[in-house]
């Protein structure tokens, strides 16, 4: 099945079995192994990527459903010699231990900071109509779909605070 995707700004044409998930297309067919497979069932968030600016679990979607879409993976967010502010903050704040969940955490957090600046409410936002304030509770709530088996949560929250320009 022919599928056209724009991945990290580059147009790619794929010919895939319709069963291929976006995650398998990225990892197995495009060699973009930054996105990780933790559970393959939407439970862990290790596979989080951005599609048209929105974070989604790449394991819960078929590549062919995204014909014409723009996909951003951790490789597109930054490279070792050109880290994004969030990636830098994860390094400086020790936001990881084994690092397996980290690409998903960073993709998720990148999209999350965008959602906040777009004014989306969350479970802990007290005033649904008001501007969301970036408290640690707010970050934890909005990042609840991304599990960290090493439990680096405090430093992940710290890194997100730092990248958002508000040191906790």
């Amino acid at each position, binding site marked *: *099945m022919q599928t056209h995707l724009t991945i990290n700004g580059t147009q790619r044409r794929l010919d895939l*079995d*319709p*069963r291929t*998930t976006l995650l398998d297309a990225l990892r197995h067919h495009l060699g973009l192994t930054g996105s990780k497979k933790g559970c*393959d*069932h*939407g439970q862990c*968030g290790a596979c*989080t990527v951005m599609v048209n600016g*929105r*974070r*989604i*679990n790449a*394991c*819960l*979607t*078929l590549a*062919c*459903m995204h*014909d014409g879409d723009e996909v951003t993976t951790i490789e597109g967010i930054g490279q070792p010699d050109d880290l994004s502010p969030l990636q830098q903050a994860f390094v400086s704040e020790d936001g990881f231990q084994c690092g397996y969940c980290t690409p998903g955490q960073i993709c*998720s957090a990148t999209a*999350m900071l965008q*959602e906040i600046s777009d004014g*989306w*409410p*969350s*479970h802990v936002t007290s005033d*649904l*109509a008001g501007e969301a304030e970036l408290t640690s509770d707010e970050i934890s*709530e*909005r990042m*609840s*779909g991304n599990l960290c088996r090493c439990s680096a949560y405090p430093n992940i929250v710290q890194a997100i605070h730092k990248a958002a320009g508000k040191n906790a």
Partner: protein
Amino acid sequence: MKAPDFDYARPSSLQEALALLAAGEGGAQPLAGGQSLMPMLNFRISTPEMLVDLSGLPELRGLEQTPQGLRIGAMTRYCELEAFPDLAKIQPLVAAALPHIAHDAIRNRGTIGGSVALADPAAEMPAILLALGAVISLDGPNGPRDVAADDYFLGYYETACEPDELITSILLPKIEPGDSFGFHELVQRHGDYAMAGVAIRSSGIAPLAGLRIGFFGVADRALRVTALEDALNGTDGTDIAGALSHLSEIDFQGDTKITAETRAHYAGVALKRALKEMLT
């Protein structure tokens, strides 16, 4: 494990989609956000020959206020509802429940139609539709029809929607001045499916009137217990011990997480907490 072999089609009109479902003779299955269907395919719980992706159907889109209420196209994603201006004023119950449904990444894909079609007994939306007295619009080979939420949820993942029909939209009736709402669910971890929960609409407080209470996470489907609603109507909702006895009408289900007895207890707790919050 991986999904069984299937064909994939993305029709661009409702008519085309319905024709594909009809031609599939039960072997074709609609695909909305995929947030429940993808795991079901991978576990091989679902084994369709063809997936009919609904994302290209303009007839299933749209989210608008009408004189009757809020009309939600079946393919409206949770994130689109969350971002709908003044949702907390227009449909407070929906606004209260949305953050409890999974996590942001899942709400960015999952659709209202998908949740109502799946009818997971522990999902929030079906109970909310019961509490609000929503109407579900279907279309199929015999033409369009409307089904009241009260007649829609039939059993364990079983609904009034036939395999060759599609949900096109859902109407949440307009709320009236004086209406009040309550929502509470008990979960092991925020974002999980509920171990028990309630969604309440009352056309007044002190006294409660015209109550509609949707329970979820308790039995084989979202349901109301009208005897319990009748027992609470006309009261101030503070002494509910008598009303709670009607919970025995529910055939509580146990699972690997909790027993039926615990679930029955939790249903009462959720109801008490939701009422308390409503009345303060």
